[in-house]
Every structure is written in structure tokens, then in C-alpha cells.
């Protein structure tokens, strides 16, 4: 059961074939090298314990040849047959202890037997201790390596620029680290030890058999190639079959997730029966795929077992026939003890093959997983601090774009010849249609990307000349879709300033107008948020992210105004909070609201990566250019809003 279960699990795991296994293994070695002394100990233990395992059948053979057979013969013949001329002894003389004399009594045999058995018991105990130790040491180094690998990948993610993640799905990267690390994890401890031990045992047993009696050994191992063939064929088939199982199970889960979370809609539209029908289709597909895949896994184990029986039959039968046919097999001397010993060898030879076959897919997947992880680690960070980078001095707040060209993909310009200056304390609003390059401008200031040509300067210093960390520490950013961590509200705000006191955090929340709703949460500031701020509304999340920026107290603030709907009251809160936050700081705002634009010292109108108009809101409207059209189609819905802000709304409505 355990074996069978393990096999299923192994095959079910992400099963892929590695591309360049040896190169990947060499990479792994770099991580393992630090623990070379542990590995050395493991190898020594491995050799010793394998030697013990090989020794056991030999000792069993001696039990037969040196004590049991003579005793049996004595019982039958009255004397050992060897005292008759011309008749060779049935036993070999490979005894560790002195051969007992023909006069030996039953008690002598028993004493000798007892001695040998004690030795075997000693071997068993010692080998258990060694196996345990070896397993622990291997796991110890393996887990350490895995931990270091995980941390290395994590750090590498931080080194990569945002550009990398705009080209690679974050989900894909996530899979690499979680799933691939998990497959390595599954292979790195128990299977690895078993594999090493198994291989050593196979080689050693084969070697012992071959040196003891080459021809008998070859005959005994006749079945072995079939076992390898069966393992590789069934594993391949199973791997293919389980790929389908995975996708079918994925469908079932997706269907469950969707149907359960939207069960209210289903009932509202009388869709229950239809959904049940649909679900049962994917449910059945998953069942059938699983059953098909199991056909292969169910067949591998019995096949190997049957082949094992056949090899035992060959050892016993062929050995026996040759023993009787003149105690010799093509020139090699046979003995009953040899047959018993070879039966033991064969068992010890077949067992690791079975074990390895169980883990084979596991190991292959792990190597493939490592390949992908190393692939990620090999990605060169495209944005690093320049060698002589100095820390950014305290920022005054002058932001300057000088002939800036930017592109994400070579040849696809996103910004072209952008020039502007924001004086300390000024507010610059950026407007333009989707894809005009608004976000890119915002991204260049904290150096999330590098310009292609031109320069972004803060207080006259090119952002590429200072360390990114010191630069970003002085720039605040409020994103359109605020990101919260699954931590307390307090910690989420404190994110803006790691060493802020609770009082500072609360003050920042007050400034951001977030204190009212936070205090109403079940545990106030210590309420733990769900993943990605789950449990809070969009507007509330936004207020927290404003508080976070307020706490950081940056000289420069970058703001991406939210477009998603929040209720009117929250919307107004957010507006107020932002007004307060922007006060006295240089701010670059990707503007969606009329009020923002009206208050801006400078409005930059972007189109196709270029600034086509600039000036104050009123001036731009008067010019009746692109901004005017844009305004007409995009910002008008705010007008009423602005009205209700200033005039008593009831009367305004009545006045219609």
C-alpha cells in the first residue's frame, strides 16, 4: 500500500523529462559543495552499510554450508560424506570459523550457528544505525541546499527589474519556485538516499555475484534488463497519462471554484441543473483519465514482482540442476550454500530496482525542476546600481526629464523626446489615452526602468548615478490597484517606514482619513488582512496605501489615480486625503479626475509617447486642442461631482 501509494504520488507529481541532466546536476553540486564533509560522511556510511547488506547473504550461505548441511549429512549418513574417497563435499569450504571436525556434536554445530547468527544480528543493528544516520545527514544537507536555493531565487527576484515581470507571467515564476522547489524537495531526501544506496547495492551485489561465480551470476541476472525495460516503458506511459489527469483534475477544480463562488448567480438565473450537468462532464472526464493512468501504475509493480519471482526460479532451478549435474557449472564449483547465497543476492538486487522504479519519475521531474530554477537564476538583472553609485542626498524635489526616450521592447518606443521640469512642491498632472506612456513616465522616476536615451534627473542628479534603494526610499508611490500584504493593518501602513512607532502609524492613518474605518474593524489596527487585503473594499485599500505613503513622508510623490468604482463617500474621503498628502510635495499624478487636473500646476498631455500639449487646465481648454477633446470624452462625468462638492447638492438637483 505504501509502495503503491508512493508510486502513484511520484507519477502524479509534475512529471517532465530533463533536457540537460548532467549540466543541471553539476550546477547542483555547487550548492552541495559547502556540505562536502557531510556528503563524505554519507558516502562512507553508505559504503559500510551496503557492505553489510552484501555480507548478510554470504553469512547466510555460511550458516548453511558450515553448520546446517554437515549436520544434516551427519544425521543421514552417520558421517560426513567427505570421509569417503572420491566424493567431494556437498559444501564449499568458504567458512569464516574453523571447519568443525567430523566428530563435532550437534551442540558444537549449534554453538557455531549461534555465533554466526549473533554476528548477523550485530550486522543488522549496526546497519540500522548507519542507515538512520545516513538518512538524517543526507536530509540535513539536502534541505539546507534547498533552503539556500529558495533564498537565492527570492533574492534574484528582487534583483530583476519590473521589466522582466512585464514580459514573464508572475504566475509562471511562482510555479517555478513553488512547484519546482517542491519536486526537488520530494526527490532530495528519501529518494536520493534510496537511489544512491540502491545503485551502490545493485553494483556491489552484481560485482560480488560476478566475482563469486561469473557464469552463475550472468544466468541469475538474465531477467534484469527486462526489469529496466519495464520500468522505463511503464513510467513513460504513466507520465503521459498523468499529464492528462492533471489537466482533467485542474478542470474539475476550476469548475468547482467557479460554481461555488458564484452559486448565487446560478440560482438567480435558474442555472443549477445546467451547472450540475456541466460539472458532471468534467467530473467524469477526470475519473476516466485517472482510471486510464492507473492502468499503467497498476501494471508496473506486478510486472516487476513477477520478473523477480522468475529470477529466483532461475537461481534456484538452474543452480540446483548444475549442482546435481556434477557440482559444476561450466567449470565453476556449485554448492548448496552458494545457491542459498545467490537467492539472497537476487532478492537484494531486485529490491532496489523496484524502489528506483518507483522514484524514477520523481527524480527526473526534480532534475527538470532544477533546470527551470537555474534558468531563472541565470537571467541577468538588467537594472543594477552602477559601480560608483552613491546614496541619494536628501531630496529637494526638483524632477527633470531631459530628452527622454524609453522602450520596453527594442524598436518599440514608448516615450519619445519627453522634456519637462517639476519644481519642488509642484503638482504635475499627466493625462492622455490608454497606452500614451503615462505609467512609463511614472516608472522612470524611481528608476523601475532605465531610459533608452536622455536622462531623468532629481535635484540635478541623474537617477542612474545613485543607488536605487536610497532613491526609492525618498519617493512615495500610490498605485491605482493598491497592494496589501497578508499582515495586520498596522504593519501594512508601517510598510512605508519600517521603524515607525505605532503612534506615527496612527497619525498617518488619520492624515489619510483611514482611521475611521480601521477603528471599526474587529481588532482595529491589529486586524489581520486576508491575502491581498481581502476583507477590505477597494476604497479602503486605497486609503491604507495612502496612509502608507504618508508615513514614508517622501519629498516626491507619484500617484496613479484609481478608476475603479468606490462608493461616493469613500471617493470623497480619498480625495481629501490625497489633497492633504500632496501638499508641499512634488507630485506626479496620472490623473483621471477633473479636480486633480484643475489643481495641477502643470498638465502634460501625452499622446503616442510624446508630450503634445502642456500648460494649465484653463489654458489648455481654451486652446481647444487634443486636451479639449480628451476632456470632453473622459472627464466630464466629474463635473457634477465637482458641483456637489461646492454647492449644496439638493438645490443643485432641484434647480435642474
Amino acid at each position: 500500500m505504501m509502495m503503491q501509494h508512493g508510486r502513484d504520488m511520484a507519477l502524479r507529481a509534475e512529471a517532465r523529462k530533463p533536457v540537460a541532466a548532467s549540466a543541471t546536476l553539476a550546477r547542483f553540486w555547487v550548492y552541495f559543495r559547502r556540505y562536502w564533509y557531510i556528503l563524505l560522511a554519507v558516502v562512507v556510511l553508505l559504503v559500510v552499510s551496503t557492505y553489510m547488506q552484501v555480507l548478510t547473504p554470504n553469512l547466510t550461505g555460511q550458516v548453511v554450508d558450515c553448520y546446517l548441511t554437515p549436520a544434516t549429512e551427519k544425521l543421514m549418513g552417520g558421517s560426513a560424506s567427505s570421509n569417503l574417497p572420491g566424493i567431494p563435499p556437498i559444501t564449499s569450504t568458504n567458512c569464516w570459523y574453523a571447519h568443525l571436525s567430523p566428530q563435532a556434536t550437534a551442540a558444537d554445530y549449534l554453538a557455531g550457528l549461534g555465533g554466526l547468527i549473533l554476528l548477523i544480528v550485530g550486522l543488522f543493528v549496526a546497519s540500522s544505525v548507519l542507515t538512520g544516520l545516513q538518512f538524517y545527514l543526507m536530509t540535513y544537507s539536502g534541505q539546507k541546499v534547498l533552503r539556500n536555493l529558495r533564498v537565492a531565487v527570492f533574492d534574484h527576484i528582487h534583483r530583476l527589474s519590473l521589466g522582466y515581470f512585464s514580459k514573464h507571467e508572475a504566475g509562471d515564476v511562482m510555479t517555478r519556485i513553488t512547484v519546482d522547489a517542491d519536486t526537488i524537495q520530494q526527490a532530495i531526501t528519501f529518494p536520493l538516499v534510496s537511489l544512491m544506496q540502491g545503485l551502490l547495492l545493485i553494483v556491489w551485489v552484481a560485482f560480488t555475484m560476478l566475482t563469486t561465480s561469473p557464469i552463475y551470476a550472468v544466468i541469475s541476472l538474465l531477467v534484469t534488463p527486462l526489469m529496466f525495460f519495464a520500468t522505463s516503458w511503464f513510467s513513460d506511459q504513466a507520465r503521459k497519462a498523468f499529464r492528462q489527469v492533471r489537466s482533467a483534475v485542474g478542470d474539475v477544480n476550476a469548475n468547482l471554484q467557479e460554481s461555488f463562488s458564484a452559486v448565487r448567480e446560478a440560482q438567480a438565473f435558474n442555472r443549477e441543473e445546467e451547472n450540475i450537468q456541466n460539472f458532471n462532464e468534467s467530473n467524469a472526464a477526470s475519473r476516466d483519465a485517472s482510471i486510464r493512468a492507473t492502468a499503467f501504475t497498476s501494471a508496473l509493480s506486478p510486472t516487476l514482482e513477477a520478473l523477480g519471482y522468475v529470477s529466483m526460479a532461475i537461481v534456484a532451478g538452474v543452480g540446483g540442476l548444475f549442482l546435481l549435474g556434477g557440482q559444476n557449472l561450466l567449470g565453476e564449483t556449485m554448492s548448496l550454500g552458494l545457491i542459498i547465497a545467490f537467492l539472497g543476492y537476487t532478492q537484494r538486487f531486485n529490491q532496489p530496482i523496484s524502489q528506483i522504479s518507483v522514484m524514477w519519475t520523481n527524480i527526473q521531474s526534480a532534475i527538470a525542476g532544477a533546470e527551470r530554477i537555474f534558468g531563472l537564476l541565470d537571467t541577468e538583472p538588467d537594472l543594477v546600481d552602477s559601480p560608483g553609485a552613491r546614496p541619494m542626498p536628501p531630496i529637494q524635489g526638483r524632477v527633470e526629464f531631459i530628452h527622454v526616450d524609453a522602450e520596453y521592447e527594442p524598436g518599440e518606443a514608448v516615450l519619445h523626446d519627453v522634456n519637462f521640469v517639476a519644481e519642488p512642491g509642484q503638482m504635475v498632472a499627466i493625462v492622455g489615452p490608454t497606452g500614451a506612456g503615462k505609467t512609463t513616465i511614472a516608472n522612470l522616476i524611481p528608476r523601475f526602468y532605465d531610459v533608452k536615451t536622455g536622462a531623468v534627473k532629481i535635484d540635478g542628479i541623474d537617477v542612474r548615478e545613485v543607488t536605487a534603494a536610497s532613491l526609492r526610499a525618498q519617493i512615495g508611490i500610490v498605485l491605482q490597484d493598491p497592494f496589501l500584504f497578508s499582515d495586520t493593518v498596522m504593519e501594512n501602513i508601517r510598510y512605508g517606514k519600517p521603524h515607525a512607532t505605532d503612534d506615527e502609524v496612527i497619525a498617518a492613518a488619520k492624515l489619510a482619513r483611514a482611521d475611521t474605518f480601521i477603528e471599526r474593524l474587529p481588532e482595529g489596527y491589529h486586524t489581520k488582512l486576508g491575502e491581498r487585503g481581502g476583507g477590505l473594499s477597494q476604497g479602503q485599500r486605497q486609503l491604507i496605501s495612502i496612509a502608507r505613503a504618508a508615513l514614508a513622508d517622501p519629498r516626491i510623490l507619484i500617484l496613479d489615480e484609481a478608476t475603479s468604482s468606490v462608493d461616493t463617500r469613500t471617493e470623497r474621503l480619498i480625495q481629501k486625503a490625497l489633497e492633504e498628502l500632496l501638499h508641499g510635495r512634488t507630485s506626479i499624478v496620472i490623473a483621471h479626475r477633473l479636480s486633480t487636473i484643475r489643481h495641477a500646476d502643470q498638465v502634460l498631455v501625452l499622446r503616442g509617447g510624446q508630450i503634445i500639449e502642456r500648460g494649465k487646465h484653463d489654458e489648455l481648454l481654451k486652446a481647444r486642442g487634443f486636451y479639449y477633446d480628451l476632456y470632453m470624452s473622459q472627464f466630464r462625468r466629474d463635473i457634477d461631482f465637482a458641483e456637489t462638492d461646492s454647492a449644496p447638492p439638493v438645490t443643485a438637483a432641484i434647480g435642474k
Partner: protein
Amino acid sequence: MQSQFIAGRPMSGNTRHSGRATPGSARPGGAPNADLRVLLRAMRYVSHYRWIAFLAYGSLFFATAAQLMVPQLIQTIIDTVVQAFIATQILKMPALVQSAAAQRMGKTIADLQATQNGFTSAILFAMLAILGFAILRAIFSFSQTYNAERVSQNIAYDFRRDLFAKIQRLSFSYHDRNQTGQLMIRATDDVEKLRLFLGQGLVMALQALVLLVGTLIILWFTNHALTLIVLPILPIALIVFMVFGALTQPLFRQVQIRISALNTILQENLAGLKVVKAFAREPQEHARFERAADDLLEQQLRVARTFSFLMPVIFLIANLGQAAVMYFGGQQIIGGTLTLGEWQKFSLYLIYVFFPMGQLGFIINLMSQAAASAQRIFEILDTQNEVEDKPGAIELKEVQGYVRFDDVTFRYFKGGEPVLSHVSFEAKPGQTVALLGATGSGKTTIINLIPRFYDVTDGRVLIDGHDVRDVTIASLRAHIGIVLQETTLFSGTIRDNIAFGKPNASMDEVIAAAQAAAAHEFIMEFPQGYDTPVGERGSTLSGGQKQRIAIARALLLNPRILILDDSTSSVDLATEYRIQQALKELMKGRTSFVIAQRVSTVLNADQILVLDKGQIVARGTHEELLESSELYAEIYSSQLVGDFDEAPEMMQARAGVVL
């Protein structure tokens, strides 16, 4: 099967109550009797596949028998070899000694000659027999495992089918109390555990027992004394295995917890990379991740220590059994009461004693888990659905659209605070009723009672004079269209999503609905038009587009009664205007209940209900209420959004004024 669900997903818009009681999550009492009873009940699912199960169990007996035959045959070979060898030796002796030796063995010279001549065929026969049994073993063992898997997968299918159907039909109040993630775990992990136990565990348990008993019988008939030496190993092995399971399971659970903690940090750093970078928090995040990685490492090493100790112990026990058989068996050989072949057989069979113990230990662990899972699954299946067709419920055929609330009181819980108390109103066919009130005032509850998502605690909800509880739920809901603020789209094509409530609608109907909802135009802009696949939760569409699809969805049903939330996501002006027009179109001639967010709605409503703490505190038209209700004036000014009801030209003119 990895299953990671986001717990605590914000519930969709029409949920009020958020009691987090999850009755299924607790481990049941754990009384062995209760465990057994629930497992017996679960076993009824096996009986649907009794023929496949019969194949699995039948194969088991043959497979085990074949397995038991092999050591027997190897003993035969060895004994034959020994006998033949000795016979040969004796026959080579001088005649005088020969007969004496033969006599000592209790055999005649003729016997010995027969042995000597017949050994080749005897050995070959035994070898062929082993081959035969090996093949039989392989076939039946395959059949056992394969059919057991078939049974188990079919059971899993049945459980999932039943769970899904039940959950689909359970009323809103059930879903208010239970989170999606929890339900997912019932339908995946719990079903999987039960499947493993019922489909495979039971077969394995029986196989282990058969193998154990069969082996012990063979050993007993081979040699009593030696068998008695083997017996004490059994309970020891079983205990060790159970201890093993009991110790490692919580350790592994802890590993899983720490892995997911680690993954959460990773996930956040990927999704929130910009925030991490913006606040230059890499060093702190690095420390956080390293801490989690160390925690995981520590737990993994704890597991390793337990394994490094227990695993060798288990093997040692097995090996000590071997050594005992070797010694005491050897003693008997020397004493002449056991043959070498029997001795060898004993050591081969010993594995068959030991392995079943391991299997049984494993299955006992599996059993308690399976019982807990079964308990949780049946808890769902046994849940009494609070909203069900009553016996003899009539079909609601044609509907005029006359809706009446007759002194309705509603509580989510028995004995809880009333969410609505003594609410009475009526809406005549074609009227628009605007619902107004603060969050938690009961607006959503009113609209949830009309399609009978909940049942009233007191009073009646009447449609065309029928109590909604007297008609079938399906026929009732067929006449009601719903458009909510948060539009849920489903993976599938746009067409599927519009035809959500009427899957067999013709393409023409779908297009007509889309046109009326001002959605046709943007749909046609997609390369695949109506066949454009909609991503998870509609990720490929903008908020305004989703909303229009939701309107089209409701329009397609052509309902007499309409429930909607008139807020629109912020979309550009032109779109907003179109959505407003589409809504207007939708409401034309239907009885409509609108959770009002905008000025135009209340202006146009035939009746406005102002709710406060579950009661209607004011009602009337806009003009009437402005005069009479302070609360209305306040809500009007603080909660409603102005909008453009006029034609675009008008708006331009007005914009000029503002400037």
C-alpha cells in the same frame, strides 16, 4: 493535487450576513463507534460498483494465493536438490553402506534411484510452476489494483456529483455561513481521502489479512515451533507502524503549513514587487523570507529526525525476526526436525508476515482520516435546504408583475436581530420602486426575498397574489431578472455568458439582447465576436463591458420583474450614457426594484422606499419625500451620484457653464 484557495474572499455584493461558523471544519467526536458508523454509510457508495469491487476482491484472493505459492515452490526446488544430491551420494557408496544409509533415511534404494533420475524433471517442473504462478500473480495483482482504482475513482465521482448538486441547490443562507474555500476542500481533499480508504484501503486491508493468515497457516503446517517464534513480532510491528503514522502525520501537516507560509511571502513579493521596490523594502523582505525558509528547514529536519529513528527501527524488527528464524530454524535442522528447504521457505515467508503489518498500520491511520472526511461530507449532504419547493408547489405561469410585501419580518438566524421588521408595500405591474438607505438598512434583504433566495421569518411575499413559497422556485425565478453591481462572468464565451439564464437561446435572441444592452457594438470589435472567450471572472472585459453583458443577460430572459443595482463602474461618458439608456430600456414595462445610487433613478421612480434599520421610515415620490423626510434629504445629498440623463449636446452646453 494541490489546492490553494484564498480564504476570506470578499463576499459578493448581495451578502449581508458574514457569520463564519463552519460546522464542517471540526473534527468529529472521534468515538470509534461513530467513525465506524459513518464509514459503513460511506461504504454504501461502493455497492453501486459491486461488480467491479467483486473483481478487485476476487483477484485479491488469487493474487495472494499465487504469491504464497512461490516460496513453497522454491522450497521444493531446494529440497529436491538436497534429496537428489544425497541420493546421488548414497548411490555412489558401496552397496553395503548404501542400504544402511537408505534405511536411515527411511527409504529404499529404489526410492533413491527414482529421486536421482527424476530430479531434472522435478526441478524443471517447479521452475515452470513458478513462472506460471508469477504470471498469475502479475495478472491478478494488476486486476486487483486496477479494479480497486476503478471503484475508488467511481466513488469519488459519485461523492463529487452528489456534493456539487447539493451545494448548487443549497439556499443563500447556507452559503452565507460557508466559505467557498471550505466547500472546495470538502469536494477535493475530503473526497480524495475517502476515496483512498474506500476504494483502495479496504482492498489493501483485506489483502494484508489474507496474506497474513495464509502465511501463518503455511508456516504453522511447516513447523509449529518456529511459527510460535514468529508470532510475537506481529503485535510489535503493528504498534511500531501505528506509532510511526501517529508521529509523522502532525509533523507533515506542520510542514505543509510552513510551506504555504513561505509561498505566501513569495506570492506577495511577486504580485507586490512594485510596492516592495518603491519602498526599497528588499532587505526586510529578504529577512522575512529567510525566516520563513528557516522555519521550514527546521520542521523538515524535525521530520527527518523522526524518520531517521523510526525507519531503521522498523527494518530492524523485521531483520531480527529473520535472525530468530535463522537461529531457531537452524537448531531444528541440526536436531533433524526441519529441512533446509523449509528453513529457506520460512525466511522467505517472513517478509509476507511483516509487510501486511505495515499495510494494516497504514490503513488504520487512513481510516480515522477517512472517517473524519466522511463525516464532513455527509454533513453537507444531510443539510436541510432552507428554501425548497414545498410538496404540491404550483408552476407560476404568466406573471403580471404585481409584487406585495405583507408585514414581512426577516432574521438571518433564529433569535437574531431582525434585518427587516414589519415591512409592507406593493408594486403595481410596470412600476419602478427605488430602495434607499444606509448600508445594513435592509435594501439587499428586500430584493433577496422576492426571488426567494431566503424565506421570510414572518409575513408573506406575494407575486400576483401567490405566496412565493407556494410556487416552484424555478418557475418563480424564471420571471425575475437580476443585474447586480458586481457582475460575475463565467469562463466560457461571451455568448455563453449572455445566454447564462437561457442556455438554449438562439443566436438571434442573444444578439437582440446584446443590442438592446448596447453591448453588440463592442462585442463585434473582438476578433472572435460572440465566441470570444471570457477569462476567469471576466478578466478580458472592462467594468462597463461586463455590466452591459449582465444587462443583456437579464434582457434575454425577458422577465416581468427586474431587480437591479443602478450604480455603474466608472466608465467613459459615452459608455455611461449607453448603459443608462440600456437600463432604461430594460426597465420599460417591467416591475423594477432598484437599489438606487443615482439621482436620475429616484427622480424617475414611481415609489421610493426609505429604509432604516430594517424598517420603511418614509415612502413616496421624490417631491413628496423632499418635503416630508429629513432622512431622505440627507441620503439624497450624501449617497446619490448625479448623472447625465440628457443628450450629449446638452451636456456640452452645461459643461460650458461649469467652465
